[in-house]
């Protein structure tokens, strides 16, 4: 790992921190249940784009931070995010060649998987079961992906130049 590989590392940190900020910033009442999974989306992007740098342990660390940030059980989101990172890293070569709409659906499946794992943990630890709109953020993530990836691609280009 040379200096070129490390370059722009702080951009990854910054984008994940921004995603976490968006996760805890207050939203108008009634919209909280529809908050997109910002951190998951950002993590998937970096896993697909720089799979040799961002991987499973990034997912784990990000999930752990997110757990502390949102006062949920430690490991609750780390579990889902590390699995999502794994699948994204494993399939990055194939998914990167997909057209954008197909890619969005791949991302949607990952978002669903993350939610499913979290739901499983909620159930296993005896926390109350959420309502059906628990799944709504995944659909919003599906619609958001093309825009988010367009923005982050720009970030990634700059990162290499500077």
């Amino acid at each position: 790992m040379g200096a070129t590989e490390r370059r722009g590392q702080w951009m990854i940190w910054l984008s994940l921190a921004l995603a976490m900020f968006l996760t805890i910033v207050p939203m108008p009442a009634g919209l909280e249940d529809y908050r997109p999974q910002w951190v998951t989306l950002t993590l998937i992007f970096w896993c697909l784009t720089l799979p040799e740098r961002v991987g499973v342990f990034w997912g784990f660390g990000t999930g752990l931070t997110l757990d502390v940030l949102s006062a949920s059980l430690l490991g609750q989101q780390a579990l889902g995010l590390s699995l999502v990172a794994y699948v994204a890293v494993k399939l990055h070569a194939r998914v990167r060649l997909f057209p954008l709409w197909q890619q969005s659906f791949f991302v949607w499946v990952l978002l669903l998987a993350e939610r499913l794992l979290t739901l499983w943990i909620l159930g296993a630890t005896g926390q109350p079961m959420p309502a059906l709109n628990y799944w709504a953020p995944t659909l919003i993530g599906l619609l958001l992906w093309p825009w988010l990836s367009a923005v982050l691609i720009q970030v990634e280009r700059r990162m290499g130049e500077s």
Partner: protein
Amino acid sequence: MRPAAETALRRPGHPSTPTRSMPSGILPRNATIKPLFVHGPSPTFRVILAEFLAIGLIVADHRYHYLDTVRSVIEVAIYPLQFAANLPAQLAREAQERLVGEAQLRLSNDSLRHENLVLKGRLQQFESLRAENMRLRDLLGSSFEVGERVLIAEILAVDLDPYSQQVMINKGTNSGVFIGQPVLDAEAVMGQVIRANPFSSTVLLITDANHSLPVEVNRNGLRTIAAGKGPSQELELLYIPKNADIRVGDLLVTSGMDERFPSGYPVARVKTVRQDPDNPFTTVIAEPTARLDRSREVLLVWSMDAKPSQAALAADTPAPAPAERP
């Protein structure tokens, strides 16, 4: 793996120049030369490790609460993020306060003065009632005096896990906050502190599914336990016998049996009383009197010398098990 071969393969192709004119999509610059050999253990090994670690953490945190120190270390590290998240709401509030017109200020000042007068009047009565109460208790031989110190804290505008009822406040161990400390608002009991770090702390609200507290019916002293029902923002009273005297509209106050919440603070009002044929107990649902989702400022309470009262009460009747977060 072959680290030497790998570095030889990757080095030359990596720098950011060659494939600038790639079509859009997430194709990075170095797509032509893919790193065939990744450093360290394979992703599959890593993910298995991570999943086991995560499950271990969940069990340790949920069952044994071993990880409170880990959590508070991370919490201090990410405090800037929480501070930043709170900032927009705080700025909006300040701007709003600055833009209030003079007429409105005068109006609110008037109403506050009025309210103050009314409260002071009521306090006079309270003083005499307290003296009388002490006298009567002296007669019974169970004197008690509970002094309390309070501190005002502000709720941080930070959205936590939407499936548990918790809030963050801006006072922490630096201000003397401790775990298990009762938190009130202007109306009633809100909850208790479950985690405290130097700058902020987390409060579990009484409506959380993991929270319950001992209460008594103010009208007749019937003791029971009020357990949170989770997202519905209601409380359920446990183990009320079929023939108990409880009615819609009854005020529930803390009984002080838990030695955690000071006794005599209002908690909730009974909303429905239902007899289900298949349930050996009466189903009683109560609504918290605290404005759990609207308060901005909360009171942290330190009770001083609450022990004598507990001793006096414990001598009277066997106390129910103190209820707290499992």
